[in-house]
């Protein structure tokens, strides 16, 4: 949850980026609200009111974050290893892309192997079959027995018959 501070440099730059992102989000809300016909009806306040309030709120918070950055007190960020992030993110992207092509088991097996690799188990010859087998078992349990509709591929159709 709240940041685990460790040793590292003070990310003043990060605070500027966060402030910019917040302000950007706020601006998008305000822009979108401006395109909405604000039919308040009998209530007097319509669908554009809430996005406007939140949008301005985010801009104020962005300003506060920006000012705070000069005092350099955002958070101490521990050293981050980007490789696991890329591995897990990539695994998810592959799962999304392949889900409806190769079916749930194989796509999820890939995610499993990618996650295991992110945590140090790099031997795909071990992790990929294990992950696929686990996902395949889950498919049988959830799609077959509990009738949750999971996307099936060739593997599932061959063994479970669809």
């Amino acid at each position, binding site marked *: 949850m709240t940041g685990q501070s460790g040793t590292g440099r003070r990310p003043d730059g990060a605070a500027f980026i966060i402030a910019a992102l917040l302000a950007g989000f706020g601006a998008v809300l305000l822009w979108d609200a401006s395109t909405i016909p604000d039919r308040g*009806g*009998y209530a007097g306040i319509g669908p554009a009111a809430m996005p406007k309030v939140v949008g301005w709120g985010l801009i104020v918070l962005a300003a506060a974050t920006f000012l705070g950055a000069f005092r350099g007190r955002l958070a101490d960020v521990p050293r981050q290893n980007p490789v696991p992030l890329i591995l897990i993110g990539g695994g998810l992207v592959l799962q999304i892309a392949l889900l409806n092509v190769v079916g749930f088991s194989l796509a999820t097996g890939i995610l499993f192997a990618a996650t295991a690799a992110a945590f140090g188990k790099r031997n795909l010859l071990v992790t990929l079959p294990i992950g696929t087998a686990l996902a395949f078992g889950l498919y049988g349990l959830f799609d077959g027995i509990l*009738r949750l*509709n999971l996307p*099936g591929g060739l593997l599932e*159709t061959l063994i479970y018959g669809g």
Partner: protein
Amino acid sequence: MKHAILGAAFAVATATAAFAENYVIMAPAAPGGGWDATARTLQEVMVAEGISGNVQVQNVPGAGGTVGLAQFAASTSGDATQLIVGGYVMVGAILTNASPVSLADVTPIARLTGEAVAIAVPTASELQTINDLVEMMKADPGAVSWAGGSAGGVDHITVGLLAKAAGIDPTKINYVAFSGGGEALAAILGNQVTAGISGVGEFLPQVEAGSMRILAVSTDTRWPGTDAPTLMESGYDVNVQNWRMIAAAPGLSDEQKAAVLADIDTLAKSAGWKSALETKNWADTYLAGADFEAQLAKEIEATTAILKDIGLVQ
């Protein structure tokens, strides 16, 4: 996709031998709602009655069914094993969401069940008849707050149609949309609003318990379980039924369409379906083929007109 592969396999199989079709029914809603219940009941009855060997239900929730409809229309063309459940709510949602895919992009097969929309007040209310309520609206439309389901949904449309039929500006109605799950019912029972509008089935238990009074129902005939008059016999030209239907994939040949129609017809007339309707308290408003298509076309036209009048569709 498994279903596509299966579908292709079975298309080949059925071309050579006529045997029970395996169907995939899409419920364009999350598990738990009315369309999902319809799809799952169809699944059970179709298998139990031997109409189909294997039926799968697929949930694709989103945006009043239009997300599921779009996916269905795009991915199933010519595949007679694919069915989708839908309803009147979809007609409105297609219009209010400006959906690029409409019911013209699928093959409507039959209306299976439906429900009247009822207008009700708490027992303590001074309003005794639907005419009292309309008079009050004529005097000051803003003073009559209506609790009902989602904006642009069947309840909202019915209030709009009533206002229009009574010569009241439909943009002036004070319709307060509540989220599903009976929040509207709680607001009516708690005397928070002037009147409520919802499916008649939701009100009937309250009427029996003596806490609510139904002023009118929206269908052209009276509804079983209540002696409330129809809007038509009260002098307002409004006829709305919140129905659920089954549709097939686009691009079917006449033979394929006839085969699906025959299967659904067998289903609708089966004892299993009748008893399922009874257990679930669903009315049998079966209407199939060309009759249904004609009725659908009429309703889409009327709905488009009223949603423009209310101001929900440009």
